[in-house]
Structure formats: structure tokens, C-alpha cells
């Protein structure tokens, strides 16, 4: 399974990419594979503030609904509206076209609570 080296990972299987003061969030290849067949993504409201580990979005597969937790605290500044009509992008390209939301970081130091790729893969037992 593919887990890029330049990302940070939450134990709940979200990834975070940080560019200056902005973070981009999605779910990992492992998560999309475990869910399979994503048919609906509930996007957060722009302007909403979330704390690290708060529920921020939801991804629904044919079988079940799964909460998506924000890997870091901040304010939601952009959402991937393409997912409304093409939720399957979460399966087909979890790290690029399938990103879920962007967040303005309020506590960038929380990134230290996240895992690097090596630790994330260790968590998955690979």
C-alpha cells in the first residue's frame, strides 16, 4: 500500500500535508482500501473551527459511515467540492484529487503528535 513520505499521519488514518500555515487533510490509502467503494462524503462547513481529533467530516462506503477526525486544530478554509459529485476520488486518488478539506492551523505545534510514515506503517503492522 502506498503511504507517501512527505505526509504526517494520524492513528485514525487521516493524512496531513502542511504548507506554511495551511494544512490539507485526506484519508490514507490503507483507510480507503479498508472502506472500499466510497459513495458519499460529508464535507465540513467552511469557517468551522475544529480541535485536533474532533470529528470534521464523514466518509460513507456502500456498507457503512465513518467519521473523519481533524488531525490538527484550526479553521476550515476550503473543502473539496468535487467529492460531492465524485466521491470515488477518495478511493482512486486518496492523496491528490481525493483530499477532503484545508485547514488554517491554530496550533501548528500539534503536528508533533502525528506520526511520520515509518511510524504509521509500523502501526499498520507492515
Amino acid at each position, binding site marked *: 500500500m502506498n503511504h507517501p513520505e512527505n505526509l504526517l499521519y494520524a492513528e485514525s488514518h487521516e493524512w496531513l500535508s502542511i504548507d506554511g500555515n495551511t494544512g490539507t487533510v485526506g484519508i490514507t490509502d490503507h483507510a480507503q482500501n479498508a472502506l472500499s*467503494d466510497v459513495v*458519499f462524503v*460529508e464535507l465540513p462547513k467552511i469557517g468551522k473551527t475544529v480541535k485536533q481529533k474532533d470529528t470534521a467530516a*464523514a466518509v460513507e462506503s456502500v*456498507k457503512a459511515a465513518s467519521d473523519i477526525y481533524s488531525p490538527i486544530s484550526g479553521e476550515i478554509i476550503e473543502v473539496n467540492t468535487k467529492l460531492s459529485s465524485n466521491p470515488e476520488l477518495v478511493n482512486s486518488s486518496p492523496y491528490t484529487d481525493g483530499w477532503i478539506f484545508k485547514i488554517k492551523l491554530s496550533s501548528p505545534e500539534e503536528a508533533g503528535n502525528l506520526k511520520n510514515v515509518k511510524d504509521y506503517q509500523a502501526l499498520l503492522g507492515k
Partner: protein
Amino acid sequence: MPETSDLRETPLAPAHKALGARMVEFGGWNMPVSYTSILDEHKAVREKAGLFDISHMGQLFVSGTGAEAWLNSLLTNDIRRLSVGHGQYTILLNDGGGTVDDLIVYRLEEQRYLLLVNASRIEDDYNWLDRKKNANVSLENLSADFGGIALQGPEAETILHKTFDEEKRPIKRNQLLFSPFKGIDVIITRTGYTGEDGFEFFCSTEVLTDLWNKLLEEGKNYGLVPAGLGARDTLRLEACYPLYGHELDSGITPLEAGLQGFLCFDKPEKFTGIEALRKQKQEGLTRKSVALEVVGVGAPPRAQYPLMKDGLKVGEVTSGGHSPTLKKGIALALVEISASQVGTKLEMIVREKPVTVQVIKKPFYRKL
């Protein structure tokens, strides 16, 4: 949920693992939920064919000089209408008119019957029947001796032709016959739980894997794929077939579930629960099982989501999900009569937010 080690496995478990299936717990069994993707397996069954492991289902045999009269006093449909080698969908009720199980009964001989029951209900059904038994009937639970496979989809008949003798195939819906495979008699029925034409096979567990592999091999050129419980659930939901524990349970009557067509009020034997149903008919239903679809773009329904009308709770979803055929969220729901008219719009509460759903005519998908 039981630990994985407590789960029962079907004789096909090694075959599922070899095919890379994802396994889940269902009714105490470790069963394949999908092999590749639920959407792909669903599509294969609608357009070509799918092969399901249904070994978890139960087989109860009833025989004896009193078998016909006795079963007819317990089951809601009329088995006198069955000739040898035919079956019918029917319902077993408790005294209050609630549902013990829904099942298919086949007449194997004049006074010998097969009851094909839900996996999660085998013990309860057996105990219920055993308590009601009289001296002229014998009841056997042979569920552990049988494995089962369902072959479903428009190509199912062609694949069956490749595998079994011409003369030894069921022609009509709900027909049953015995056909030899590797020297063992296999029960073949023309039925299913997908809304497509298809067949179910029940046989001794020793030849089950060989039959599974043979059907997969013969079906390869016709688009046959192994299909899991995930697709089985979306397929039956589109066809509006009830699932015990969801649309039916000990507190839900078949009138509420919309199964009037399987209730014979006028047969000579009064079936258990008939008085409660008559009373319910006379007084009028207060709630009913309906089909719902999500209006516009919205989260797919899931079992137990509350349904609101004018700010009041009027029911809840009993089964829901994404319909691969309609490409939208669909559900079966038990709602108050005031909210059951086709066209009624309701608010379904998903993660504390309302999603608009509408009552539509059953079923979502009909081919048969």
C-alpha cells in the same frame, strides 16, 4: 460481537480466503462481505452472474402423516397449494402475530417438507416448532450437514446448464429437485434473494467446495464472479426483500411489513397468530414498512436513523444504504401510517442534521 475465534466458518472458508475475501461477522458466522468491491459484485449479479456462499442458512425437515396439516397450522401461506417439488415463501408467527422467522417451505414428498430458514434463527425456529410438535410429525435440524451456494443473475441458467444434466434442472420459480454431482444428491431450487433469476444449491458439505469451484470455472466465460454479503444486502434491498432483525422481528407483524400476499386467512387450518393479525386488520395498521429514497444529494440511509415529520419522530430506517443501480441512497423504514403515503417527504436525521427523503412505491428494482 463474539471474538473471531467464536465465529463459525462454512466449508467454503478456505476458498474465500484463497480468493482474498474480506470477512465479517454475520449471525455468528465468519462470512465474506466482498471479494473485490461490493459495487462490482452487485453489478455482476444484475448484468451477468454472482456466486454466493449461503451455507449459514438453516435446513429443517418435517415429516410424518400429520406433517401437512401441522405445518399449515403454523405457517401463514397455504402449503396445500404446493405440489411435490415446489416451494413457497411463508412466515412463522408467534401468538401475538409478531414474526418468528420468514422462510421458504418446499414439499419434498407428500408428507415430507424442507424449511429453509435464516441463519440467525435456526435454534429459535427449531425450539418453537419442537414445542408445538404432535405425535404425527417428526422434526429434524440438519443445518450442520448441509452447505449452500446461490448462483444468481441473468447468466445463471446458462451456467447451470453447463454444470448439470439437461433433465435435472428446475424450470419454474420456486421449483426444487435433486440432481447428482460427484455421486452425491444436490438439492437445486430456482429461487434467490437478489431480485434476479437464479438457483440455490444445498448439499453435503463434503462436495460443496468442488461444486463451488466447478460453478466458478463454468461461469468464468459468462462473467460469473464470487459475491459477498455486502452485495447480497444491496441486491435484496433494491428488490425490497425483508431481512429478519430489520424489517421483521418478534414485534413486527407481516401486515406491518407489507407481506399480505403471503397470508392465507381462509385456509382450513387457523395458523398461529391469525387472531392477532385479524384484530390488527380490523383496527387498522398504525405503522407500515415503506420504501424511501434520498431526495437530491445526501448521505445514504442507515438502519436506525430517525425519521421526522413536522418536527415529530414518525419512524426509523430498518435497512438502508447506497443503491448501486439507482446511484442514490435508498431505505426500507417502519413509519407511522400518517407518514406512509407515496410522495410523503420526511427528514432523516444523519449525524444530527436533516436529509430529505421521500416515500416511493416498492420495489426499487423489479425484474422478476
